[in-house]
């Protein structure tokens, strides 16, 4: 099995690893590096549980070819908190009961972060659009939408 050495930046830290030919980023992150925050949901690109940012843009790790990522910067939900300081989105999901089984939560947080990175003043419809590629089987989405809107508010207050 051909293996390719790659070096990428994961949540701000340079990491080097070997990836198998054809391996997807999800497997590389989880088994190659040990960042377990992106989850396997379908390996089809249809559910969003493996959402990560590549160079600041939302992508699905399960359909991203790992060996193409040398030199790229990856952000996962595992890197959202700074030490013990949770990201406002994480705090908002906690306080607003926006997770039940928690399996979609890391991907959902990355989708939400990708929205707020570009748009600190999202309207509800924009939040709906932003999480539309991320499925949740437990919550009915509404608590998630509310939590993202509340986090945006907190973040706006903080930067003021």
């Amino acid at each position, binding site marked *: *099995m051909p293996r390719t050495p790659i070096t990428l930046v994961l949540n701000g830290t340079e990491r080097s690893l070997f990836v*198998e030919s*054809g391996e997807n980023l999800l497997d590389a992150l*989880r*088994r190659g590096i*040990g960042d*377990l*925050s*992106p*989850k*396997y*949901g*379908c*390996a*089809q690109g*249809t*559910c969003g*549980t493996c959402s990560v940012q590549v160079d600041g843009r939302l992508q699905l790790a399960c359909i991203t070819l790992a060996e193409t990522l040398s030199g790229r910067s990856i952000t*996962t*939900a*595992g890197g*959202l*908190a700074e030490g013990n300081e*949770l990201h406002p989105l*994480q*705090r908002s*999901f*906690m*306080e607003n*009961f926006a*997770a*039940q*089984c*928690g*399996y*979609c*939560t*890391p991907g959902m*947080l990355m989708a939400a972060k990708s929205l707020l990175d570009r748009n600190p003043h999202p309207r509800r419809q924009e939040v709906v659009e932003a999480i539309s590629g991320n*499925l*949740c*089987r*437990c919550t009915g989405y*509404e608590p998630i939408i*509310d939590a993202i809107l509340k986090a945006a508010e907190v973040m706006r207050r903080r930067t003021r």
Partner: protein
Amino acid sequence: MSSIEFRKELFANERPEGLNEIGRPTIRQDILGHVTGRSPFYDDHLFDGLLHMRCVRSPHHHARIRSIDFSEAARLDGVIRIVEPKDVPQNLNTLLSLINFGKEDEPLLTPSKVGYRGEPVLAVIADSERQARAAVDAVRIEWEVLPHVLDVEEALAPDAPVVNEVYPGNTFEYYDKYDHQKLRFGDVEQAFATADRIVEGRYRMSPIEQAPMETCGAIAVPETNDRIACYTSTQALFFSLGTTAKLLDMSSARLHFVGGTVGGGFGGKVDSIVEPMSVLGALLTGAPVKFMWDREEEMQVGAPRGAELWDIKDGLDSRGRIVARSFTGYFDSGAYTRLSSYAVVKATGHLPGPYSIPNVASNVYCVFTNRTPATAMRGFGITGVDFAIECQMDRCARAAGLNPIEFRILNAYRDGDMKAHRRKAKNTALIECCQVVADKSRWLIGSQSRSQSSLRGGGGERAEIPATAIDEVGRIGDRRRREVPTAPFAAGDRKQLPAGTQRGEETPAAPPQNPDMLGHLQSESTAAADPLPTTQSMPRLQPPADRQVDRQPARIPTRDPKAPASGTDAGQAPTRQPPTRRPPVRRTSVSRHISGFRRR
């Protein structure tokens, strides 16, 4: 946006307040793990040298295996082991054998004849998932395709293909006697004959996937001390452990199951297939083995909520009271039993819905067809028939010319009513729910409906068990010999059971085994049964000065358990029974895999 309100004024006197932690919106214990992506789901345990297991599956609905050639697959790069049916020590099981219900009817890996598309016949263990997939593709199987049956009614025809040889009539067999579950209460035929109008409907629900975001899976890892650890997505840890021990014919003491943090289940993670598969893999290879379903397998070979078909016939009197209701129900179990046999009984206990109807009958069938076996899902045994009942109620309301909410309230069950399964209703609240929704949705109902209460008007005549028509139609095997009608009494046979016939009684919970476990707070139930509680605050612990004395129930804050409580049988409240009154339990045929009780 959505809103939520608490209607605290309703049933307020049954609900003592003054609790510290109960009723608080405390944040979830697991939430920090969820938002940091660090909650330990089964697949979040990493093992060096993890092997991957995948199944070779039938492409046919119904077929016999003529030959299998896996020589090429076995030679492929990274392939460690081909697992065959003969590698499974006890390769026949039925899930509910753990409570001794039903016959062994399903192999873990099928050796000779498959009953559904996707049925596993062989497994491959390889270094990587990709290699396992390649090996699966390289297995050559010669099939003899057999005629199949996919429709529940066609499956009951005398000449239908036999789906599962263990049940040659294509139905589960109840109590070694009937090919269906019966419910008989009163005399529906007589009541239909005198009813003002008859309303009939036929309702169907197609199979539904539980679709948890985390697919089913397990990782089995050889531990020291000759044990196997199994990290699993199961919804039922010991159920899966017991099933694994049984199929692999190994002591449960050698199994260490770890789970408890699961990415959604909705009923689809009870079936206990991934656990024995992965443990078998670990036993055969001595290495950690993962067996998980990809999303396609989760969708199509993971058991769905099965399809249901219901025929309902109602008789109404001139005032809009339902005087008789008859059901014929079919649960499409797919090729094997799994849990559908249980759903049929659960559904039967649920009939005729939350209504007080003096004459009820049903025949419900667990039918085998050549499709993916069905299993539990959220609302198991109830969701489908509730759909049928409530659509039927809408039809009836329109036939009776009544507002649909008023029609429900008119027919609603109340405290003290006798239900069709011959137990009294208690703690009911259907009427209040209807009234509150009428308010919230501004759906006008009349003052008559508005003044009704679950607490009043039940019992009395409505608590009586009527004389009941019964029959012995549908004995096991009859349908293979000739066409037998499926609906209750359609074959004409009838016998009479006298009014008041009741063979058992309410089965309350077993009391605490030790007075120290007897709840100071469970006097909640005192208030629940007592319409006039003497204290509004929560009675507090009255711990014993002398623990020997405390074995007397008198110290427990309660009222006389034999006192009647507003037409209900709440006097049998289990938590207030003295330990000596523990009801006898017949312990026949206890499963050694999990203590269970024979139900056949």
